[in-house]
């Protein structure tokens, strides 16, 4: 069986310019990233700001061209193709990703028109609202009349409009209250089962990732430093950065607290990722000498 999404050695470099606009170097925002998501699977990409997770999402969506590597959807390379109906995206902030001057129905209609949907558009919009468990008459409402959770449901309906295979979820619930988040996640799981959707779930929230993704990749400075089934990675993290991330999660129970790795403090303080790496790099030679 072919994977729904396959990423091969993806590289994206951005030029670094000095104050006069001259190129003085390059930063490898994405540095040789590979992973595959089986059809119907949920792959979690965990990373902090600057890790390259949004750049990967943009390249999959065709909004940014990679420098090297390949992106295959259902075994077919999609590089160089413009519109990709098979992959759609749900953004972090539904307040900003919906046009405030369009009604919900008009917003959902945009992808139908862009991808020349031939059937009954009005009926399709109603069906999509059903799918995300919103009343059909919401089609006539404006975003400001909706709550955050409702707006995110509209964003999901819009992403589903052209029947994609793959949804890229970029922090889909981080702008929502925790009780609303739980409901949106339930909806995404339900839709995934019903429609056989494949998800690429991008988040910094490791607790949420543990509950939603099956496989996780931990991104640090453009590289996947650790990958594997989410239970294994979280229970027996193999990389220091994964350990630091897990140790940093604010948790609500003693069981979770006990699960967090113990990180050596530097001068009584939680180390930064760079510090921890430097510490290990400095310690390792000594350890091998012993």
């Amino acid at each position, binding site marked *: 069986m072919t994977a729904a999404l396959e990423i091969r050695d993806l590289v994206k470099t951005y030029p670094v310019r000095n104050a006069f606009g001259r190129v003085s170097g390059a930063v490898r925002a994405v540095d040789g990233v590979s992973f595959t998501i089986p059809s119907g699977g949920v792959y979690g990409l965990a990373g902090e*700001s600057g890790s390259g997770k949004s750049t990967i999402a943009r390249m999959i969506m065709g909004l940014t061209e990679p420098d090297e590597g390949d992106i295959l959807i259902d075994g077919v390379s999609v590089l160089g193709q413009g519109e990709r109906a098979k992959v759609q995206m749900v953004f972090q902030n539904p307040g900003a990703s919906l046009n405030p001057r369009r009604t919900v129905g008009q917003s959902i209609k945009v992808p139908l028109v862009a991808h020349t949907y031939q059937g009954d558009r009005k009926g399709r919009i109603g069906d999509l609202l059903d799918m995300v468990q919103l009343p059909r008459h919401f089609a006539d409402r404006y975003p400001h009349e909706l709550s955050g959770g409702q707006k995110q449901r509209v964003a999901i309906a819009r992403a589903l409009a052209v029947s994609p295979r793959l949804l890229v979820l970029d922090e889909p619930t981080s702008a929502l*209250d925790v*009780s609303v988040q739980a409901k949106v996640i339930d909806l995404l799981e339900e839709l995934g089962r019903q429609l056989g959707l494949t998800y690429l779930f991008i988040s910094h929230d490791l607790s949420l990732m543990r509950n939603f993704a099956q496989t996780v990749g931990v991104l640090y400075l453009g590289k996947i430093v650790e990958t594997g089934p989410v239970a294994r990675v*979280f229970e027996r993290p193999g990389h220091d950065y994964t350990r630091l991330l897990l140790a940093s999660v*604010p*948790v609500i*129970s003693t069981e*979770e607290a006990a699960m967090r790795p113990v990180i050596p403090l530097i001068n009584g*303080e*939680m180390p930064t990722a760079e510090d921890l790496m430097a510490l290990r790099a400095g310690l390792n030679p000594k350890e091998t000498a012993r």
Partner: protein
Amino acid sequence: MTALLSVQGLSVSFSTYGRTAEVLKGVSLDVPQGAQVALVGESGSGKSVTMKAIMGLLPQPPARIHAGKIMFDGRDLLTLPERERVALRGTAMSMVFQDPMSSLNPVWTIEDQLTTILKYADRRLGRDRDRRGRRARVIEVLSQVRMRDPERVAQSFPIMLSGGMRQRVLIAMALLSEPRLLIADEPGTALDVTTQAQILKLLRDLVEAQGLALLMITHNLGVVRETSNYVYVMNKGEIVEEGPTAGLFAEPRQQYTRDLIAAVPRLTGRVAL
């Protein structure tokens, strides 16, 4: 023992376009001297309005405080003359804001900004410090928030610092006036998770080392557990439940609190309910 800060039956309403909304309906909470207390609630619960009422930052109108007392150190802040109220704010009680970029002046160096606050605090506390003394104090407070190169940071503009460093500057600012109560509004929410962990640890250490009282205002139950030993849960303008943090998390009594805790994803994976 009486609490350092005691909010008693606080009711606040907002009037806009001829309509009135009851935003706080008799909120009561206590922050004893040196205690770490959290106020947790989802958006719209009224936690920020409570905080603003305590700090005296509620715009009136549209807000109207119609009942209640806010006792700080035995005095009711609501009946205090404006002059004395202003004198307390930023000296006896300080605030750490959420967004470190928009709370700092982009065209002033960190040292200039800290010095301004220090001059004000010194005036309130009747201290006399010369230029060199102020500079030394600024460097000292930057070291207290574990800033690695305090001299260099003092000369920096906010844009030259990372989000975590900016948040440290804000904490340093709050500490400058030697407050007895620190009110923290979602500190670290805008930061990466590893940076947030550093900031929370720093706050916890500082509060313990200096014997400050902390009122932590947050929507994140994990942050509540990491930073407080007593918690008030707020919903729709009311305190629905309160208790020692560990006990309340282990055995929530109210349905709202139970639902809220159940909605939090667990690092250990799914829990059977």
